[in-house]
């Protein structure tokens, strides 16, 4: 059983994680430890392995080497462990992945009802509470296709929260959204962060990273190249792999570009 009150064990511990797609080495010896309540933002160019890494955490991808320990339970071939971990880890996808044949409310209650075996009334009460929290209680009886992208992503967050997870993973939650809808989703995520949720977000939204993250990771080529608190990350131009000059350029370039992006989309976050 996953222990919920042990304070010594970090929420997530990744040691020497390796992942191959055929012969392609997607993740190279990743090490990461995330404390409870900590907020991590992962950034990096596309194909750098950041999505693969967080998808390994709830076994949407199977890792080939190293260890992943989530909430004190090791993610290995034990089917029971996988089920337990998935129940405690919520995930939000780039393309929302809402179930189109169910209403918003049904999307939110289904997993509580069939995975946690809650009675419908209780599950619906929880769902309505979280829909309130993501500010769309009035859409409960609509179908996903009737909502805007931003609304759909907020439903997806509510759906993940309904399982009352201890860790939330975000896989580029705003990349598929029209620019004017990005902020409504980020607002929800900021609120969630302020309530002490353990969060790992893959995102390019550097304003969000500055505001919320405890640490920012920069990944490229399947490795974590830099790991620092946001202030340090955005001011320093040194990377943890100084020998690899080319990659360092990448990182600097990345940060500079993100500087440009920040004020435009996140002015409200700095207010």
């Amino acid at each position, binding site marked *: 059983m996953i222990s919920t009150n042990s304070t010594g064990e970090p929420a997530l511990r990744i040691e020497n994680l390796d992942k191959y797609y055929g012969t392609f080495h997607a993740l190279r010896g990743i090490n990461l430890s995330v404390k409870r309540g900590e907020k991590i933002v992962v950034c990096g160019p596309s194909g750098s392995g950041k999505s693969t890494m967080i998808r390994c955490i709830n076994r949407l991808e199977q890792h080939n080497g190293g260890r992943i320990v989530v909430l004190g339970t090791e993610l290995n*071939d*034990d*089917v*029971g462990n*996988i089920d337990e971990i998935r129940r405690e880890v919520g995930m939000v996808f780039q393309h929302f992945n809402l179930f189109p044949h169910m209403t918003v409310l049904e999307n939110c209650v289904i997993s509580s009802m069939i995975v946690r075996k809650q009675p419908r009334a209780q599950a619906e009460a929880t769902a309505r509470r979280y829909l309130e929290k993501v500010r769309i209680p009035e859409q409960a009886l609509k179908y996903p296709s009737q909502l805007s992208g931003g609304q759909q992503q907020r439903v997806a967050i509510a759906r993940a929260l309904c399982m009352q997870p201890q860790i939330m993973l975000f896989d580029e939650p705003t990349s598929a959204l029209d620019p004017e809808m990005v902020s409504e989703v980020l607002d929800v995520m900021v609120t969630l962060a302020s309530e002490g949720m353990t969060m790992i977000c893959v995102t390019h939204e550097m304003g969000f990273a500055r505001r919320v993250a405890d640490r920012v990771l920069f990944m490229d080529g399947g490795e974590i190249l830099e790991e620092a608190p946001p202030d340090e990350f955005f001011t320093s131009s040194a990377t943890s792999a100084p020998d690899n000059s080319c990659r360092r350029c990448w990182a600097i370039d990345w940060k500079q570009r993100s500087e440009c992006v920040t004020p435009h989309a996140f002015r409200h976050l700095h207010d």
Partner: protein
Amino acid sequence: MVSLLRNQKVHNALLQVLYVGSIAAMVLAGIVIARRNLADQGITSGFDFLFKSTGWDVNFSLLPATANDPYWWYFLIGIINTLFLGSVGLILATIVGTIVGLARTSSNDLARLLGRTYVDIFRNIPLILQVFFWYAIITHLPTPRSAHEAWGFLLTSRGLYIPFPNVGSAAFAAATVAVIAAIVLPAWLGRTSRLAQPIGQRHTIQFAAAAAALACSAIILALGRLPDTPLLDFPALQGLNLRGGLRIPPEFATLAIAIAIYGGSYIAEIVRGGFKSVGTGQVEAALSLGLSPWRVFTLVRLPLALRAMLPILANQYVWLMKATTMGIAVGLTDFFMIVALTINHSGQTLEAIGILMAGFLAINLSLAAVFNRINKAIALKGNQLRG
């Protein structure tokens, strides 16, 4: 033990072994039981029976057949009958289907209505019922003495009699090959990689090739003509029976007609779908280049539609090939009926079923292979825009 079962890898391996194992066990058990049951009836399993003579006759065969022939020869006859009936059915169905399909895409409301009525009627009545119907019609035709006659063709309850050239069988086969060459050769030449000439010259070369092949066929027929006979042999009444010409048995005629009509209704829909898939943009572009409507059809609409319909058409052909097994309903000795008769007469049940499966697998796979080649040959190169 429990923790071992919860291990994903062990779990997966176990599932696979269990699934494949239980299916293999079921098949094996069936074979073992069947062999014992058959042995009890005094039937030894094995393929020795293939070389024994059958002792029964086939009612339709392209190859010489007597009751003394061994089983393997009969199986061969069956396969050839199936392929022959299938090919005749396919060709007729394609002709019917193309005509009806074109009617369905025509701009003329009356033609469309006619085509649609045809498709709606013949698609929605089971093939076997149509086979029974045509068989009843043909077997209720008048006897040879009072046969319907038209242009040398005789319709009787004993079959259809058609005029036939007076040539030896070898010469006839060679002439048939030449006619097929007349169709295939221009298509083969038409592929851009083979001829570098501009389109106009290419058409001349294709036309010349077809004409040459047809001429060859005519020469073969003339040379192979049986001495002291007219070129064409017309069926005629002699005494109580008909002599001369070629007799198409009622069973064969029934199936060919039924497959042509039923298959035609399906092919018509495929043809219609193919033409519908050609975007109006391409047609408008061709018209705006000043091409005549006929040229637009042959150079733009037809080639594009053909590419769209070929994969579906291939499936339909495989289906029609399998539909020849309806032969057993009217007693035509196709491959399946020969297998069924073999089981009845020799009791070699397992072997015969095995041969049946292998035979149809081979027919299906070779049809699929042919169509894959054609598909690849005519596929649009690169990522040219479609539709």
